[in-house]
């Protein structure tokens, strides 16, 4: 799980162009949206693409996204449970 969290941090920094941010700056329990990393709606779409491209996981119901993308930790848990 720790390796997956670390990998996700690197992928998110790269994919979302979070300039000047290092993996260790991100608390995996911290909210990704709002007061945490402050991601926006386009970032949310990028995360959906990242899940499909890197982990082969399609998020069919947008409502699920709110739970899955709450933090890096919730993303990692979802990947572990759903990756084939």
């Amino acid at each position, binding site marked *: 799980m720790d390796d997956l969290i670390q990998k996700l941090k690197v992928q998110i920094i790269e994919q979302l162009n979070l300039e000047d941010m290092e993996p260790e700056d991100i608390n995996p329990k911290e909210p990704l949206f709002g007061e945490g990393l402050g991601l926006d709606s386009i970032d949310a779409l990028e995360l959906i*693409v990242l899940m499909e491209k890197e982990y082969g996981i399609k998020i069919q119901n947008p409502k699920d996204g709110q739970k899955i993308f709450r933090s890096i930790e919730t993303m990692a848990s979802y990947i572990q449970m759903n990756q084939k």
Partner: protein
Amino acid sequence: MGKLFINKYCHIKNNKVFLDGKLVFSDDEDHDMKPFLKSVYRFLKPSYNKFFKMDEISKLAYLCSEYLLQDFDLSAFNKDEIAIVLSNSYSTLITDQNHQNTIEVADNFFPSPSIFVYTLPNIMIGEIAIRHKINGENIFFIVENFDAGLLTDHINNLYLTRKAKVFIGGWVNMGPESYEAFLYLLSPSGQTGNNALEIEKIYNT
């Protein structure tokens, strides 16, 4: 109704930034455009992290507008009294190509939303407007070459019909081999009157 005057202008090309005709920043001409734009950002220190999410041509337009507006008090005008009138010849060709690369191969079809949103030139106007909270009229012309007459006619028409009082006009272009941003600021007070000949003159300085 009075005249419009040229208050300021900024030109970015060949890894150099000129403000009112004077060199204010330069980088090694051999550098690629990407690191150059980042250097300009670091030099200006605007603390605007959205910069890093923009495509390259929007970064160029944004940085040019930062120089243009850094000492101008936009708050003296209503947000809807400020108009943006821009132009170029390549539209968003580079970003269009980047988007195409994400959808070209059928079994690797992953269009990137953050690239796709920049596949219209109007987004440059949007980025400047968001940054400076501008709500006025705007338009983006795609023309073969910089056309001071076209911009001046459109701006004067907006001014005479009281659609706006302050204008950001110019040319922000990026092709496979070159890039250039030229923005100028017009308002009802100043010394040099706004006309196509003057705009052409400062463009060529």
